[in-house]
């Protein structure tokens, strides 16, 4: 029986051949992402900014200008209206999201305002329904930001410690560097495409961290095994060997996960699309980073090879990567 083989049985790819280009590209991508993030900012959802979102649904086509004009007299400050597209919507389902900024001095938008907005919009499209109305006060949103930052930091910290305990500190630095790379690139894409960034996105970021570390750990695990097996071989060779040996698995798992996520991305509905997109992107970036970032960082720092001599100098003889 013929098998589907993503990767040939024997591979001997030198992953460090273009180390300068790949690692350089990663560094550039991280800097670019940070630049985009600072220049364009993130499209924060109400979870983080406070305010109200109203989802509208109507058989009539969404007319953003008319909606805006209808809401103008209410004097609600900053109002954002976006049309929502989804392949599963038919022609008679036209969905839009109306977002109203947090109102001065109120913990959450008052029901009177919501009723006024709904009445104004129904004047434009009489058949309009409001499948969801969500309102978050500024007090809660401030706390949610703190919690989110804390969650990401706590995850990175926990992984740093776990890898350090199970492997060596050099591995944990490499792994966390790869994770930071993944997180920043994801934030960069969200900023570039101005996808709504909310609490679910934070959950997605943490999932990416979880997935990417999974990938990295599998390679590290093989590396540890091979380092013991081939005590005298060059660290770079051992790393290449380990990456080649696990390559099939790495791509296979990424493949199945991406296939599953692709189904969710296309068919899962618009409510969850941003969340799934973040994970989808993160799996790609995470797979790349476990092959090209985590190992490079470990190679740069170097690894203690001889465990029988506790104070052997580390990190000097393997730290010159100029391949």
């Amino acid at each position, binding site marked *: 029986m013929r098998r589907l083989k993503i990767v040939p049985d024997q591979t001997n790819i030198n992953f460090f051949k273009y180390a300068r280009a790949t690692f350089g590209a990663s560094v550039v991508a991280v800097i670019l992402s940070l630049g985009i993030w600072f220049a364009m900012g993130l499209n924060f959802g109400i979870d983080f900014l406070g305010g109200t979102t109203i989802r509208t649904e109507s058989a009539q086509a969404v007319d953003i200008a008319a909606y805006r004009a209808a809401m103008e007299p209410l004097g609600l400050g900053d109002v954002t209206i976006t049309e929502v597209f989804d392949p599963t919507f038919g022609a008679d389902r036209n969905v839009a999201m109306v977002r109203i900024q947090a109102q001065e001095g109120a913990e959450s938008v008052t029901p009177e305002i919501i009723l006024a907005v709904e009445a104004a919009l129904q004047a434009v499209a009489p058949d309009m329904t409001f499948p*969801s109305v969500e309102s978050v006060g500024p007090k809660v949103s401030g706390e949610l930001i703190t919690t989110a930052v804390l969650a990401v930091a706590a995850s990175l910290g926990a992984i740093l410690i776990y890898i350090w305990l199970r492997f060596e500190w050099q591995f944990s630095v490499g792994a966390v560097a790869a994770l930071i790379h993944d997180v920043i690139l994801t934030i960069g894409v969200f900023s570039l495409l101005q996808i709504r960034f909310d609490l679910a996105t934070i959950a997605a970021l943490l999932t990416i961290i979880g997935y990417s570390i999974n990938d990295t750990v599998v390679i590290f695990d093989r590396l540890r095994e091979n380092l013991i097996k081939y005590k005298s071989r060059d660290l770079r060779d051992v790393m290449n060997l380990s990456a080649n040996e696990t390559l099939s698995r790495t791509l296979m798992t990424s493949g*199945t996960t991406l296939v599953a996520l692709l189904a969710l991305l296309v068919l899962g509905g618009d409510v969850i699309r941003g969340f799934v997109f973040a994970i989808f992107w993160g799996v790609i970036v995470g797979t790349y980073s476990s092959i090209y970032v985590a190992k490079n960082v470990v190679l740069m720092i170097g690894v203690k090879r001889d465990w029988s001599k506790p104070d052997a100098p580390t990190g000097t003889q393997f730290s010159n990567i100029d391949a």
Partner: protein
Amino acid sequence: MLQFALWNRIFIIGVVLAGLAFAMPNLFYGQVERHNDAIAEIEATGVTSDALAADRAGWPDFLPATLVNLGLDLRGGAHLLAEVQVEDVYEARMDALWPDVRDALRAARDQVGTIRRQDAVPGELRVQISDPAGLAAAVAAVRTLAQPVVSLTGGFTAQTLDVSGAGDVVTVTLSAEEQAATNDRTMQQSVEIVRRRVDEAGTREPTIQRQGDDRVLIQVPGIGSAQELKDLIGTTARLTFHPVVGRASSADAQVESRQLLLPSLDEEGVFFILEQTPVVTGDDLVDSQPAFDQQTGQPSVTFRFNPTGARAFGEYTSANVGAPFAIVLDGEVISAPSIRQAITGGSGQITGNFTVTESTGLALLLRAGALPAEMVFLEERTIGPELGADSIAAGEIAAMVAFSAVLIFMVLSYGLFGVFAAVALILNVGLIFGVLSVIGATLTLPGIAGIVLTIGMAVDANVLVFERIREELKTARGPARAIELGYERALSAIIDANLTTFIIAVILFTLGAGPVRGFSVTLGIGIITSVFTAIFVTRLIVVTWFAWARPKTIEV
């Protein structure tokens, strides 16, 4: 490694079967839900109607009937995050303390002179004495009113009151320890009363949780809007009975100290002057029901007092026959009838301009009791049931497609072993639902995403093993040895990889709220079940197949 002890096999098969048995009711969600609802209603009312019996018979009693709870985003409903204004209670406590302070200072009149209560910020009691020389004596006299703080921890003896003096003013506040203890009680009461009100309204599976120091999270599936929920739980519903001093026609009417000027509920421009201290309060109510007035046929609300309330009400009404008294709800006078005769039975009736809905609502609120403090809503979310149904439908399709794609991918890559992995994957999804049902977890939309992600990632442990077997086949002697080594050597990678992801799931669970938490639960359970299926179930299948087929060579 290739042999499984009999009890091992029994255990693995038992776990899988149990998981599937508990997952199965979810395939028949509507039927099982009606069955459970029917049983609950029969138990609650004791009445078995034909319709209920039919619903109950829709699912056999001997089968498991636990279901995965659907979160608000899937079922539709309302979500509120309320902040309880715990400081309100300090104010009430200080007002209640004033008569005692007054008596204590009057007893020391020869040292402190005359006393006068000053206006102060809420939660603070300021008393001016006419003889500043007696300040120390005044402070000492008030301090005798303080008591040790009652707290659960015990052993810590702090006093309930902070009393200080400056110039000719004595200032009394609750001590920090007493404030903390009071906050705790206020929160417990608030959560309890919100729960009672929501339960009284008869909605299904509400979530009412205390969050942090002063927050309450309320999630009620199936309710039409957050506003409806707020109407139910947002009113304080404090009922008091006050002696009426007089009537007034404007809100600016002059009142003496210790008197209240309150508006009438239905008559525009009518105000009542009342004595501030109520005769009885709603705290002494034991029951309240909607009813109709026997003379007029108007909707009304009946109530019944406990013995303490009944005695106080009886004493007051017998001493004041002919005088009017006011029934006040949350600072508005519902009605102010005259006392026709002494009411000693401890029960009575409130008539006002109620509609039937209003009288039913008021009776519910009175039955459930008053909230100890006002609540401010920080977060409100309403999700329509159609949106949830759409999300479920979309999630189901996505899960099916993801599932099929992964299966095809696995079978194409690993042949027969891919089929084994596919069987394990099906069992894995079954186990996830089984565990979710048993622990009563809530499935949210991100939770479905978590399951789909798990479908993709669950094969990882199998892939690790299969790849390892492939490698070992090149070096090891014979397929049996290769399978054995494959499982043995892949184990450390499986454990490390999944433990790190599990750590993330735990962090998400601890820090996340609502939907994020739902996602972390499915992710965490998915990790456990996928490791279980990979290192036990698939291995059992592989070993059983190997023992049965005895292949000379294997191809993975």
